[in-house]
Each structure stands twice: as structure tokens, then as C-alpha cells.
């Protein structure tokens, strides 16, 4: 899936003198990710202690499936946010892609399911390309552009849908079964999304163009002066984000099975929350796709944990909000520490 999106590969070149400081930053990021993992484990452990049913296979499957769509969206959003941009249009892209792809089943009889997934991907890619072109060529703030396309794409969706909706009856059984299909007890959807997350993480970590996204996010002007084609990279990030949102739309259709014009409304802010909880700095330059996906999983787990514990689901949102604030406060504290440590080290090296 992601091979079509990744440009040519070049070997990473470790540069000698900065290895030690990089090792320090890397360690911090590992700490950051394991932090989320620790919170996740504590959360699961506490919930399971109170209500052992939480660890039932069926429930775990439920949690995973619920988190997959957000994890998928989080990977694309990570690429955009790392480059110091933001994509607010993904919720609308999910909605448009969900309706258009699901309605293909009734328009074209017997259409193969992979074709529908490709169509969803293409719809999302088109939206992402539009965003990317406007941001990179127009050099206008992505917040404004994607806020505008959030409205425009949702509006187009509403015009297309009219008062209609796609109902489960018009969808083939094989499509409706996608969320239920499992391999060795693990939902297919979760495996597929895990592969995408791994591919995204590998791309950001080891590909030159992936590393350049971090450079752009840390210092856009510096990146430009260093010869990085900023426009092209940012464009690619938006295209990937759009394409993944398109895919997520098809999965949304398979999971919720009744699609009207409100599908995916408000997802953009949830996904950005997940990404930020997952340790991606909102102003770019740091964070990983794995962290973002863990953030999505954590938020999803909270929702189901509250449900299992019998706590009113109304607590869900405020806990998510509180976690987000906690995560960014912690990140701030860590980065201040890191900065002092690095400064200390470089001053020691100078003398």
C-alpha cells in the first residue's frame, strides 16, 4: 500500500560528531513512546483487575477494531504535523470516501472489494493532492487551507449524498464481514493498519525524504537553505495523509455500515489529539508514527475501558482532553530537560 507512496530510497548516512547527542535525543524519544505504552498497560491492567472480562478475546478485538481507523488517520497526520503543518480536512475526506466507495457497490454490480478500496484511496489522494498543492505552491498556512477544505469537502459530500444514505442491505456480505475477519484471533483490519503504521514509521525513520520532513518541521527556512525541496516534501506528506484518510473512509463504511453525510465529522480533532498524546510535537520536528498510533490506541482503549467498568461514557471526552494536556505538559518538561542536557554537553565539549 505504502510502496506506491514512498519515493526512491537512499541509505541513511550517520554523521560522526553528532552521534552522541543524537543518541541522547533518540533515548528521550524512546522514553516518550514507552511512556505512552506504560500508561496504556497500566490502564489495561487496572481495568482488567476490576473487570476481568476486559481481557476477553472478543473485547480486545473490539478495542483494536475501534482504534484502527484512528490509528490509520494518525499515521498520515503524523507526517503532516512533523513537517510543521496540520491537516484538518481528514474528517471530511473520511466522510466523502466512505459514502462514494460504499455507494459503488449499488452502482456497479459485483464490483470486487479491492477495487473499492483503491477507489477510496484515490478519492482521498485527490483531496490530499489538492491540499498539498495549495499549501506548498501557494505557501499559505496549512491551518487555513485545510480548514477551508474541511468545509468544502464536507459540503461536496452533503451535495452528493443529498438526503440519501447507504444502508447495510446494499453492501455485499464479504465487505460487511471485514471488521469481523480475523487471522489467529487478530482482526485483519488491525493487522493491515499495523503494517501501514510500521511502513509509515520506517519511512519517517530511515528514508531520506522521511528525515527531511523532520528537518522541515524543526526549521523550515534552514531546511530550504540546506537544499531540501520543502514544497515537494510537504506536498507528499499531505498526499499521503489524504490517501490514508481515503482508505480509512472505506474501513469506516465497512465498520459502521450505514453511511450518510455526517460520517467522520469531527474526526480531525480526535486524530490530532491522538497524535499529540502520542508524542508528536504540534509545531513539528519530532514524534513518530508508532507513538501516534499508540496515542490513538490509548484513546480508543479509554473509551472501551469506561464502558467495561460501567463508568458513564460521558467521562470519556474529559479524560481524553486531560490526557492531551498532560502529554503536552510532560513533553514540554522533557524538552526543557533535554535542551539543558544538550547545552551542558556541548559546552563541555567546547572546553
Amino acid at each position, binding site marked *: 500500500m505504502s510502496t506506491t507512496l514512498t519515493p526512491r530510497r537512499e541509505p541513511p548516512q550517520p554523521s560522526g560528531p553528532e552521534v552522541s547527542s543524537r543518541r541522547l535525543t533518540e533515548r528521550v524519544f524512546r522514553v516518550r513512546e514507552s511512556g505512552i505504552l506504560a500508561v496504556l498497560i497500566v490502564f489495561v491492567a487496572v481495568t482488567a483487575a476490576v473487570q476481568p472480562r476486559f481481557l476477553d478475546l472478543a473485547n480486545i478485538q473490539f478495542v483494536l477494531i475501534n482504534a484502527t481507523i484512528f490509528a490509520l488517520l494518525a499515521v498520515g497526520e503524523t507526517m503532516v504535523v512533523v513537517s510543521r503543518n496540520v491537516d484538518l480536512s481528514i474528517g471530511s475526506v473520511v466522510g466523502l470516501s466512505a459514502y462514494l466507495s460504499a455507494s459503488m457497490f449499488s452502482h456497479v454490480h459485483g464490483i470486487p472489494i479491492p477495487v473499492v478500496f483503491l477507489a477510496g484511496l484515490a478519492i482521498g489522494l485527490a483531496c490530499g493532492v489538492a491540499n498539498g498543492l495549495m499549501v506548498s505552491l501557494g505557501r499559505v498556512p496549512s491551518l487555513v487551507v485545510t480548514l477551508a477544505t474541511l468545509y468544502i469537502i464536507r459540503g461536496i459530500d*452533503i451535495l452528493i449524498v443529498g438526503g440519501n444514505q447507504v444502508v447495510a442491505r446494499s453492501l455485499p456480505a464479504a465487505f460487511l464481514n471485514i471488521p469481523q475477519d480475523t487471522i489467529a484471533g487478530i482482526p485483519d483490519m488491525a493487522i493491515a493498519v499495523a503494517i501501514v503504521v510500521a511502513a509509515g514509521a520506517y519511512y519517517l525513520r530511515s528514508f531520506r525524504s522521511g528525515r527531511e520532513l523532520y528537518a522541515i518541521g524543526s526549521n523550515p527556512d534552514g531546511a530550504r537553505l540546506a537544499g531540501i525541496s520543502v514544497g515537494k516534501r510537504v506536498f507528499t506528506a499531505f498526499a499521503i495523509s489524504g490517501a490514508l484518510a481515503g482508505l480509512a473512509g472505506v474501513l469506516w463504511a465497512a465498520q459502521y455500515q450505514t453511511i450518510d453525510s455526517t460520517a467522520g465529522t469531527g474526526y480531525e480533532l480526535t486524530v490530532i489529539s491522538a497524535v499529540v498524546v502520542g508524542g508528536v510535537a504540534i509545531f513539528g520536528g519530532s514524534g513518530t508514527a508508532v507513538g501516534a498510533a499508540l496515542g490513538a490506541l490509548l484513546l480508543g482503549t479509554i473509551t472501551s475501558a469506561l464502558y467495561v467498568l460501567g463508568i458513564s461514557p460521558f*467521562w470519556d471526552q474529559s479524560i481524553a482532553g486531560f490526557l492531551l*494536556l498532560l502529554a503536552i505538559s510532560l513533553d514540554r518538561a522533557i524538552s526543557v530537560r533535554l535542551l539543558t542536557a544538550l547545552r551542558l554537553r556541548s559546552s563541555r565539549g567546547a572546553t
Partner: protein
Amino acid sequence: MPPNQNQSQARPEQDEPLAPRGAVSGESTARPAPGELLRSSLRWETGLVMAVIAIVIAGAVVSPQFLTGANLFNLGLSYGEIAIMTLPMALIVISGEIDLSVASILGMSSAVLGILWSYHWPMLLIFVVVACVGALAGLLNGLLITRLGLPSLAVTIGTLALYRGIALIILGPKTISSFPVTYTNVGVNTVPGTQLTYSAGIFIVLAVIFGAVLHFTPFGRSIYAMGASPDAARFAGIRVKRVKTILFVVSGLVCALAGVLWTFRLSTAVQNNGLGLELDVVAIVLLAGVSIFGGKGTMAGVVLAVLVYTGLQNLLLLTNFNQEATGIVTGAILLASVFVPNAASFASRFSDQLRKRRGKIRPSAARAGLK
């Protein structure tokens, strides 16, 4: 006078002669900017005025209903709260920050209002509590942003969820709708002697106050300064953190007021009151010519943008355009508002890009130079 003061302050502290000279030259290049800024923003406002006139004419042509008092009343009713919330948002964006939690503060104060009323508290006391809730919500935003130095975008996405979550916890699935008629009349009656709704009247009064503060007080001017350059503003002795905190508290207060108006207009308090309005508010503020990077924008622009936005929505309603899809128009205007002022530089960059593509000289040369 101020630049000289800066210079004399900077000299004894820093021995490096470069720093003050840099600061001075920065000031002197910034010197003509206010005039230029005014001119360019005036041009944007002229565009908005023309848009308003075009909408009024189009409205009058499309439907005889458009210019009737009843229609204008309904317009004020439907968009009054959004319009009110754009005012503090404009100040915050000009100061270089953003507040995405406005609609959640509206929802939370609506929930507090509803639940306390259902506990039979006296209404005046409830108003005081709601005002405190709004101010505290804004204060939390402001403190997290200024004292911990966190990005406002992330903080207010967090508090967007947090405050909406609190509304959910307070009200749950309940709907409270037994408000006294004296208060719910704000959604029915006009301000005596006018065709205005109460929310529109409050918007006008607040717009005048906010405009006066922004344009004619040192406090207001300092908002521009910190939006243009936070460091320069700090060096000039502006208490950036305090001013920003005040702005967020004011935003919280105003959103609480909008929440009260919203609740009484619909005479219901439910947890999803005003859900998703934050993006509309931001869209109007950006349409007003306020730069998302801060330091730019006028109150006149905000008022005009409110008129353009509400006028267009209404026009589309009267033309039987799918009411839910009017976002297309909002989005298109938003895009126009960033692309039209930059059209010239955009075109030149595009042709540059083409030339580069054809020549293929510079990118390869840059790459060769790196290796």
C-alpha cells in the same frame, strides 16, 4: 521616542555593539510598516465592504424577503452567538495565538446554567457562577499557554475535549428546558425600538468596546506588537504573558455569555450546545483579514466578515441551496481570503517553478554542492 528609550536601555546591559544596532535597524525597518499595514488591510476591508454590498444587492434581487426586518431579525438570531465569539477570537489571533475551545466553553456554561437552574438556584447567582466558570476556563487556557509555554493550538484542542467533556459529565443525556419566559424572551423579542435581537445588540456594543480597546489603547496596540514579534514586544517592556492570559480570560467570559444567550434562545440546555462552532468562528476571523500568524487585522474587518458570512449563509438559504452544504461557500471564501492577497507573489512563484523545471539548473547544482 520609544526606539531611543530602547536603545538607551539596551546599551548598558549588553556590551556587544551589534545587538542594539540590530534592534534599532529592526525598528527602523518596522517603522514605515504600520502605515503600510493600515493601507493593505484597508484594501482588504474595502473588498469586504464590496462583498457586503454585492450580497445585499444579490439578496434583494433573489428574494424580496431578504431586506425585510423579519429576515434580518432571524439572521441576528441565528448567528448572534457566533458573531459575539469572533470578537475575543480576533484579539487572540492577532496576539499570535488561537483558541479552539470557544464552542466547548459555550457548551460548558450552557450545561452549568441548565443544571443549576434545575436545582432551583436564583438566576442572578447562576449568572455569576457561569461567568466565573467561563473566566476560569479561559484562565486555565491562558496559564497553560503562557506560564508553561505550551502551543495554544494543542492546549485548546485539549481543553476543547475537556470542557465539552465536563458539559457531558454535568448534563449527561439530560435536556433541561424549563427556563422562565422572562429569560427565553431574548430569543423572541427585539431590543426595544430596533429590529435587532438581543444577541445582535450585544455584539454591536461589544464590537465597539473591543474595537476601541484594540485600536485606541496601549493594551490594544501591545496585542499587535506581540503578534508581530513576541520577543521584540517583551524587550519593549510589554507583559506578553499577562496580556495573553487576560485575552484568554476575556474570551472565556464572552463565550460564557454566548452560552447563556444560546441556552435562552433555544430554551434548552443540552451537552452538545454549540458543538463544532469553533471552526466557524476561526473561519470568520480569518476571512476578516486577520493573519493566522498574528500581528495583523482590524475590528472593522471582523464586523464586515461577520456580515459577509451571515449574509452569504442567508442568501444561500433563500435560494434553496442545500442549507447544510453552505460550508462550500465558507470554505471557498476562506481560500480566497488567503490566496487573493498573495495572488501576485503566488503567480510569480509558479512561473519561477516552471522556469526552474525547464532549466533544471538550480536543484541539481544545489545537490552537487551538498555532496
